[in-house]
């Protein structure tokens, strides 16, 4: 009787550990790299007139340009968030918070990806007051003043969402918080390239999000530790 009881326990423990392995596969070594480009004529990015805020204007030798369709050489498209929308979602939010800066009356970076429940620290590095106003719809909307020298605002978002961010005092300031479920994401650089690493074998839907144009998706299957390529082309319009 007793030995049977122990056998049952041992079997249960084995099963349990087996399930654990299934539920949490080790971080893979596959990757998806690629380049985001555009076809068509992109809208001309406009120089921002910061003369109403001299403390910011003097930080920029040449006027800053708007960034809603930021392009680079070779038809590269910058600030595109490429992420795994279906497939292995990786790990939960790291304890390291992401940092968002208000500097020279600009948001740095323009597009900030983060994970659900990951810490977000917002700094005001300027000599002027900003009000930081993320226009969330799924998450609770808030709006806080942050005068110069204030401590960073510590916050986080608990639902995935693409959130436009604005400062009502300086209406040209415009950025995005990208709150994702997955830990597999990247933002395209000035050359349009991105690199999503650490993917275990499996089937994936890779989605590319740009603030002005419709998002695109591709199916990618990774077996072993291979490096797959996925390129995205956005059709842009000059207006």
């Amino acid at each position, binding site marked *: 009787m007793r030995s049977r009881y122990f056998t049952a326990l041992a079997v249960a423990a084995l099963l349990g550990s087996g399930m654990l392995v299934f539920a949490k596969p080790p971080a893979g070594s596959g990757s998806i790299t690629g380049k985001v480009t555009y076809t068509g004529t992109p809208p001309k990015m406009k120089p921002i007139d910061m003369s*109403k*805020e*001299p*403390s*910011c204007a003097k930080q920029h030798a040449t006027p800053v340009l708007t960034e809603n369709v930021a392009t680079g050489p070779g038809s590269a498209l910058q600030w595109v968030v490429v992420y795994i929308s279906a497939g292995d979602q990786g790990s939960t939010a790291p304890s390291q918070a992401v940092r968002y800066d208000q500097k020279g009356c600009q948001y740095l970076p323009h597009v900030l990806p983060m994970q659900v429940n990951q810490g977000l620290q917002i700094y005001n590095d*300027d*000599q*002027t*007051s900003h*009000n*930081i*106003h993320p*226009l969330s*719809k799924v998450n*609770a*909307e*808030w*709006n*806080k*003043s*942050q*005068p*110069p020298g*204030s401590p960073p*605002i510590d916050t986080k978002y608990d639902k995935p969402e693409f959130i436009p961010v604005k400062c*009502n*005092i*300086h*209406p040209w300031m415009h950025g995005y918080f990208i709150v994702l479920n997955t830990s597999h994401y990247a933002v395209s650089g000035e050359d349009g390239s991105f690199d999503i690493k650490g993917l275990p074998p499996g089937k994936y839907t890779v989605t590319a999000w740009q603030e002005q144009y419709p998002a695109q998706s591709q199916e990618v299957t990774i077996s072993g530790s291979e490096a797959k390529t996925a390129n995205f082309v956005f059709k842009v319009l000059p207006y």
Partner: protein
Amino acid sequence: MTLKKLAVTFALGSMALVTVGASSMFAQSHVNSPDPSLGAPSVASEESHIGNVTGHAEEGKRLYRRFCIGCHGPDGNGQGMNAQWIDPKPRDFTEATFKCRSTPTGTLPTDDDLYNAITRGFVTTNMPSWAPLTPQQRADLVAFVKTWSPRWTKGKPGAPLNIPPETPITIESILHGRELFQKLECWKCHGPEGHGDGPSAITLTDDKGNPIRPYDFSSGSRFMCGTSNQDLYRIFMTGLDGSPMPSFADVVKPAEAWDLVHFLRTLQPLKTPEADLWMTYKAAHGSDLKPIGPDAAPGGK
């Protein structure tokens, strides 16, 4: 005509009147709401608690149909038939974002906040005071308004702001408040004289992208969310969610907040203790005061 005949005529007449009344009511609700379900989920279960009055959403739904639907719409999204003529736009209850709260920015308001908003109405908007409705009716409406967003079932209202007792009204307090008005850059939107004509005023939009004006302190005695010094304190500490007005709760200490209240009172065309003190001070020292605006901005030159 006998007395009996008279009574019959009267009875018939009043029946006819009732019928006409009822059919016109039906006609109205049909025009306003083609969908009798009225969009809102879980109507029966939602309640509100205002003092010892308990509001019921089921009752509130009937009242909403009668009084609110024209502007706030059959789907509670602020797109009623009248909305196109209204500026600022009626509140979209499906977002559960409210301007007048006693709770921190980004949190739900309390039942009392909603009740007070319905009772008070919003000055400079099309939302009138609904004080003519009974307290029970207003409580019922609060309960129904909470059925439009799932945020009410998933979350709770924030903790109401603790407002410490008001500090004495002194010229030092007013002057410090004036410094804050400059330093916090209230003037960027509200203007150096509080006329709502600051450099950023013209660019302001609400969270739906509709143009919105900052408050003009010279326009009268009432604010968006009340009339008292406590109301004024609460407005800038909690912010008006969904509008460009941010919360200053993290950056203004309670005592400083009262200083700002005292200064803001001097911007109004009212005979208040603050205004009296300020006029006397300005008459004597007006030329020493640095004007509010970009020249005095900490980062400006």
